[in-house]
Each structure stands twice: as structure tokens, then as C-alpha cells.
């Protein structure tokens, strides 16, 4: 079983090495997509032991994940791919727990959840924004989850082939859920720990950016020729 961790990264030179090493201890290989960073993210990741793919133009996290997925499936013959974060919010030691339902043939997609018992230090505004996202996802995709915007996912080869992410920016998280429903993939949730630090909070999405995501999704639903 080849398990490949996929890490989209943008200006993460200071944190990427730790994330790559962490993921590498629990996966057969790590693919980092450097989304046209201005710092040395790509070099640092390669030195830490990752295969690095470079976007020559910044295309966003969704696009980077899709690039990593296509490479992992074709060049590395991945049986399972794991979506992982560059900034050290996730714990590599939880990769085996995430992969397990796929190995046992219980699911095609395993989604991490911050609300299934494990402790984390999530700020209140985050919590509230997530509740709203949950409701929105239920209405739009008809998929009921405890945590809709968790970036920690594991996908079987089959699922990874079927889930083609076309929303380049942050709305891809919702698109993945949408596609799970459309392609009738079996999914389960597993508890994960996400550690929030001041640094990562400042960089990652503010709760207000949720509106941009909602806009992207609606745009996709109504305006895109399929």
C-alpha cells in the first residue's frame, strides 16, 4: 500500500520542513506543491525530503492539491493520498488513523474532524464560522458532517481519480464534499487534532473570508458551463 501525503504550500519556508518530516514518518512519500512562493518554500521542502512540484503562477490551494494528486496517482502510483497542511497545524501521527478505514475497505474518503472528541484550542469565532459553514454545506451539498472545512483528508486511489478539483482557491473544500455526494463515494469522519498558533491564525483564512468562499461556490453552481 503506497500512502502519499500531499502538501500545498505558499510562502511556508519557516514551517514546511517540520511538516514534511512529520508527514514523511507516516507516509511512503511526500509531494509538496510550491504555489509560486516568494520565499524558499520549494527548496526547503526538497531538502526535508519531499518531491517538489512548482507552480509557475500562483493558482491557489485547490489547484495545488489537484496538481499534487495527479502527480501522486500517475508518477508515484499512490494507493491512498492524504491531504496535509504545510504549516504544522496537523499531526502526522494521525495519518495512520485517517488511512485505516480505506485499508479496511470501509470508505473511499476519510475526513478529519475537529469536533469528534479530540481536544483543540480553537478560538470562538472560528467555532461559530464553522457552524455556519456546516449549515451552508448541508443546504448546498446535502452532506451532513461535523466539520466541513477540515483540510485533513485521506482518499483512496479511486476517490482521488474521481474527485477532480476545479475550484482553484479556497472553495475547493466545499467542492470536495459536493463531489463525494455526486460520485456516491463512501465517507467517514475521524477525529483529528488541529493545533492553532498565533502565526498560523494570522496567515490562514479569517472567518470573514468565508464570504469569498460562499461567492465562489455560488458562482460555480450557477455560471459554469459543465
Amino acid at each position: 500500500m503506497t500512502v502519499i501525503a500531499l502538501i500545498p504550500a505558499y510562502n511556508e519556508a519557516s514551517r514546511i520542513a517540520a511538516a514534511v518530516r512529520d508527514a514523511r514518518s507516516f507516509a511512503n512519500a511526500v509531494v509538496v506543491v510550491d504555489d509560486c512562493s516568494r520565499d524558499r518554500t520549494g527548496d526547503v521542502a526538497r531538502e526535508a525530503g519531499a518531491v517538489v512540484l512548482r507552480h509557475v503562477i500562483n493558482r491557489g490551494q485547490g489547484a495545488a492539491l489537484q496538481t499534487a494528486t495527479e502527480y501522486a496517482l500517475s508518477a508515484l502510483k499512490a494507493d491512498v493520498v492524504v491531504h496535509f497542511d504545510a504549516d504544522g497545524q496537523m499531526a502526522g501521527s494521525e495519518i495512520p488513523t485517517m488511512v485505516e478505514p480505506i485499508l479496511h475497505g470501509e470508505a473511499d474518503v476519510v475526513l478529519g474532524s475537529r469536533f469528534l472528541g479530540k481536544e483543540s484550542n480553537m478560538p470562538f469565532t472560528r467555532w461559530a464560522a464553522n457552524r455556519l459553514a456546516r449549515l451552508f454545506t448541508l443546504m448546498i451539498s446535502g452532506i451532513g458532517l461535523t466539520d466541513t472545512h477540515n483540510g485533513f483528508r485521506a482518499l483512496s486511489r479511486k476517490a482521488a481519480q474521481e474527485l477532480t478539483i476545479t475550484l482553484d482557491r479556497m472553495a475547493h473544500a466545499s467542492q470536495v464534499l459536493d463531489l463525494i455526494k455526486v460520485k456516491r463515494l463512501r465517507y467517514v469522519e475521524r477525529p483529528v487534532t488541529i493545533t492553532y498558533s498565533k502565526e498560523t491564525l494570522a496567515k490562514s483564512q479569517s472567518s470573514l473570508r468565508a464570504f469569498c468562499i460562499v461567492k465562489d461556490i455560488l458562482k460555480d453552481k450557477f455560471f459554469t458551463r459543465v
Partner: protein
Amino acid sequence: MFQIILVLFALFAIARTTRQYRKRKVSLHWFLLWNGLWALVIGTALYPKTADAVAGFVGVERGADLALYVAVVVLAYLVFRLFVRQEETERSITQLVRRIAVQNPERPDERT
């Protein structure tokens, strides 16, 4: 006065399009459509009464109003088309960037 400016501008637009068509920069389809539109503008500018008649026929009081309404609808449609086209361009760029990335993987340094 306004009529004269309008006619002059329309003639200018027709002249430009014709030149572009001669240079084969625009298609025949576009050439006819665009010039037809400007010919219509000249017509209504010189004979506003005809526009009023058409307007009356579709239930709008003045010809100038009708022209404005039609313009808004046409513009809205064009914006929509641009919007879709833009989205397609974005997707093409992503695919291009992806192909370049996948064709040039950088393997990890083995010494670590």
C-alpha cells in the same frame, strides 16, 4: 448638435471596422453585425420619429428610452459572456501551470 456628433461617431466606427475587416482582423460575421448596429444608430439619429414608432409598437413611450433599455440588456448579456469566458481562461491557465509542474518534479535530496 447631439445628432451630428452621434452620426459622426457612428461613421468613424464603421470606417474603423471596415479597415479592420480589410486587414482580416475581424470576421465577416462581426463586420456585418457591428456595422449594422452603427447604421441603425445613424438611422435613428437622423429620423428620431422612426424610433418613436418602433418604441410605440413594443409599448415604450419614447424611442430614446427604448434604445437605452435595449443597450442595458445587450450590455448585461455581454458582461455575462465575458464572465464565462474569463472563467474558462482561468481554468486553462491552471491546467497549463499544472502540466509544467508535473513534468518537472524535483526529487528530494537523498543525503538527508
